[in-house]
């Protein structure tokens, strides 16, 4: 019922919203990050984390720690939380929660396909996959030789099947094709997710459309920057942009013809919400763009907690947690490799 979520939302969503807000307050704060940044060894990091929500997940790890173990255990916590929420969820929230994982699914598919292309061991690849994007027959992806087979053998059973219909070709798989496939899939996924949220209506639609639009615009910018200087034609490039978001449709027209980073900047600065992101960067620089985008995203995600009775908090929490894990990974890598001066380069404080 549009506009009347407050009346009925808590019947099915109240418990889970409470859970997710509780989880949110367990996120590491700036004070935690400051302490973590002062750590000398990975054991110090473990010690500090053991005083946080991560404690039970790390306490049984034997002492010479590795960055991967820390990240793995932290991800495990996220996965456990997600699974708990998914078990408790009813329709349509369970579908919403499943939508959140499709992005990881796409990444995993691409990872396996690329890996087999370069003749890597499947088991090794499986370990690298994000556990949220796992599905039953993911290992079978290695069998496929081309897109059509990929679809017919494996993906037809997964929720990704509808997104695939746009990129079925019988071309053999190569790096370029795979990258295009990833972006086509992501485009279809975002559009589908956007439609689904619009269908839910209410505050969910309002907040999710903002978050997804930001995601779509960010992807558009990244696709543009990454495809500069490759053999991707303008038309092909435009096909990869999602058909919603702030840049749609005129910004896409302009982005499609960009030839260097400064042109992209020119296009983006016309849009007031993105102006501050780009105004922070010096000309010709694209390294810090990722961090700037992440910071903006975190800000928006945090804001979504200000409103009640919508599903956006679940999306926001999952994203924030992923950001936190990225932060932890960066900090532990810096500590492990004695690069403490660079710790602050890529850490995005959440609170």
């Amino acid at each position, binding site marked *: 019922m549009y506009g009347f979520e407050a009346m009925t939302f808590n019947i099915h969503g109240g418990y889970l919203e409470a859970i997710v807000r509780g989880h949110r307050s367990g996120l590491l704060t700036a004070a935690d990050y400051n*302490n973590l940044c*002062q*750590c*000398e060894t990975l*054991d*110090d990091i473990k*010690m*500090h984390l*053991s*005083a946080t929500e991560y404690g039970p997940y790390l*306490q*049984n*790890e*034997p*002492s010479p720690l590795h960055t991967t173990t820390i990240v793995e255990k932290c991800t495990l916590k996220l996965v456990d939380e997600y699974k708990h929420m998914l078990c408790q969820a009813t329709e349509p929230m369970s579908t919403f929660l499943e939508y959140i994982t499709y992005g990881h699914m796409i990444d995993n598919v691409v990872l396996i396909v690329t890996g087999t292309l370069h003749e890597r061991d*499947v088991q090794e690849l499986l370990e690298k996959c994000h556990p949220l994007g796992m599905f*039953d*027959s993911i*290992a*079978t992806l*290695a*069998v496929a030789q081309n897109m059509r087979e990929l679809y*017919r*053998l*494996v993906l037809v059973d997964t929720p990704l099947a509808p997104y695939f219909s746009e990129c079925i070709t019988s071309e053999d798989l190569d790096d370029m094709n795979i990258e295009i496939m990833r972006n086509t899939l992501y485009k279809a996924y975002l559009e589908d997710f956007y439609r689904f949220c619009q269908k839910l209506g209410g505050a969910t639609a309002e907040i999710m459309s903002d978050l997804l639009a930001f995601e779509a615009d960010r992807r558009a910018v990244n696709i543009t920057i990454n495809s500069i200087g490759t053999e991707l034609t303008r038309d092909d490039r435009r096909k990869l942009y999602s058909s919603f978001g702030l840049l749609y449709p005129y910004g896409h027209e302009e982005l499609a013809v960009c030839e260097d980073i400064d042109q992209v900047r020119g296009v983006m600065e016309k849009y007031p919400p993105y102006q501050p992101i780009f105004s922070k960067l010096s000309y010709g620089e694209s390294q810090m763009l990722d961090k700037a985008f992440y910071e903006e995203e975190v800000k928006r995600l945090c804001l979504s907690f200000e409103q009640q009775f919508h599903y956006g908090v679940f999306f926001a929490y999952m994203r924030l947690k992923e950001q936190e894990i990225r932060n932890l990974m960066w900090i532990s890598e810096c500590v492990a490799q004695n690069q403490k001066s660079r710790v602050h380069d890529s850490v995005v404080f959440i609170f």
Partner: protein
Amino acid sequence: MMQWLKNLPEMDLMRSEKMTFVQLIIPVESAHRAVSYLGELGLLQFRDLNDDKSPFQRTFVNQVKRCAEMSRKLRFLKDQINKAGLLSSALPTLQSDVDLEALESQLADHEHELIEMNANSEKLQQTYNELLEFKMVLQKAGSFLISGKSYESAEGRELDENVYPSDYPESDSTSLLEQATQSGPSNSSGLRFISGIIPKSKVLFFERMLFRATRGNLLFNQAPADELIMDHVSSEMVEKTIFVVFFSGEQAKTKILKICEAFGANCYPVPEDLTKQTQITQEVSLRLSELETTLDVGIRHRNAALHSIGVHLSIWMNMVKREKAVFDTLNMLNFDVTKKCLVGEGWCPIFAKPQIQEALQRATFDSNSQIGIIFHVMDSVESPPTYFRTNTFTNAYQEIVDAYGVAKYQEANPAVYTVITFPFLFAVMFGDWGHGICLLLGALILIAREGKLSSQKLGSFMEMLFGGRYVLLLMSLFSIYCGLIYNEFFSVPYHIFGDSAYRCRDDSCSDAHTVGLIKYRDAYPFGVDPSWRGSRSELPFLNSLKMKMSILFGVAQMNLGIMLSYFNSIFFNNSLDIRYQFIPQMIFLNSLFGYLSLLIIIKWCTGSQADLYHVMIYMFLSPFDDLGENELFWGQRPLQIVLLLSALVAVPWMLFPKPFILRKLHAERFQGRTYGVLRSSEMDIDSEPGSARHHEEEFNFSEVFVHQMIHSIEFVLGSVSNTASYLRLWALSLAHSELSTVFYEKVLLLAWGYENILIRMVGLAVFAFATAFILLMMETLSAFLHALRLHWVEFQNKFYGGDGYKFKPFSFAALADDED
């Protein structure tokens, strides 16, 4: 009077223990020992002096880390012991007083040994599993092959190649493999097959995937395995299914093998030749039995090792936990400037000072330190923690009070009165000596088995029941007492104290229910006359009795509460509170509800017919009118006018003077001091250091006034609503007696009216269940909660601050409790 009050012997439980803030200066060499002795003593609460440091920047972080690592190893060992299904016998073999370094290396050895053993046995187990699977595949797939052969001969084709997966992993079975490989001359055309085994849950998907990959050009046969097989990842037993796939073509083979790999299916070669099959089967069985014995020996060896660890495990765990606690506490201490001493601060009760000093001396002596530990008292700005010394009996009552809020330091402790008033108010609501006896039996069982129950781990509900066993005991004793007064035994009245005072007008007793009974002798000596039961006026009589009784109890308890606030003011030397809070409160409450209680008592004593509602209501509406037939005693009207006026005066009395006087005092104190900067330095000189900082707080008149206003309004409204709240005593007692009457009359007596034994038994069973679950459990719980509310809200809000914090000494005993 004042002198007499002051000379009363001190009650231990009334005021919390006197605490003192102490400083310890400990030489580094004896620090560890001193802290562990203090932990054994458990009477000193350390203050964290390194609050601003994160855990890994503290002094003893390495030791803490080592302890954490050791406890991780211990958890691993415990986990292994539990997995092996060994009961870690908690026999405290007190011989081992190993020191920490030795334990650390010992633990590392044990862990290493176990991991190695596990790896070995896992390898063996895997080989065993593979052989077992191979055997099953041989048995099942053999039968498929035979049927397949007949099928194939009908088709006129030849089955001539077996495919062997190249990745058969175990080197142990190479001999087998060689044999098998020889048996299959390769032929690149024609029908081939792959046989293997796969977890049952994956079969359907596997088959579908095979079908898709080969575009339907295959034949899939499956049969369930007879035995469960251990999955080596999760070490759970899983059901598996044996399959045989027939297909043709080289490309299909690679695809199928890849799919098998992806699904985690293990493929095993099966020779088509029957004789070879039997031969291999025999060989596999032989190896299986060999392996089984090896595995058995391995497990026995491992169990023996685990058992020897298990004996010490609990001691070790305890030791590591203590050690960690000691280092955690040491981390709270500061280094002094010379880095040779550790400085600690904390709270301890004054009575414990000699004990602490003795422990510290012992520590100095035992660690052969040159310098003794300096232990001296300091002044502190903070308010001290609250510490009541309770015993097993009073502990439960103290818990009831603490659940509302921990008393401020040295504040009057309501637990002293709660010990009796709580069970008593409960019993007023639960008055039935039959039910009381049932509760008493329960409480006695819990108390009799105290020693046994306190050592074992109970469920959360039993834990609660056991913790409150002495509360339960008093509750049941009081309900027997109240039950005797109400004269109820499972709602049946008994003539315990002689005959009823009433009898029928004539022998037939026909008009007993219409006209009534006549009184022929003195009143029933104790409690309610049994003849009231079942009479027409039973409810009006009992209601009136219980209602009035509730008000009497309520007014008495609230007066006690206000009296306690007086004791508090005396204790803290706060004459302002006595004059402008205690006196008007006392006047207000007693001029209204104290007067009502007086009227009730007079009415009971004189047997007057006066309507008390009328008296109370018209006391407010028209105080000057004549009381008429409602006059209970001479001079009632002028008394009422005086009481009403004093109540009216009491309200502004408790509202206005106090904030204004506070403001005046404040103004006097800072007279002429207009510059705030200088204030603090002057303050330190002219007033005692302990209270110096409190006065620095800004005096905000409007805040104080609003606070006082809220307080007064709360009291005035509260005295009405709290008195009304005590009527719950009546309501619950009524509900209880009505419920038990219903169960007795409508279930037990009704069923007993039938001759049929079956119906009687059913009736008895229903009655027993209703009594046990509804009356004994639900009603007990509800009466308990209402008694709790009456204490927390109606009683304690008259005097209890409840904003203190508990004394949490560093103690090993508490540490052990924590874990359980």
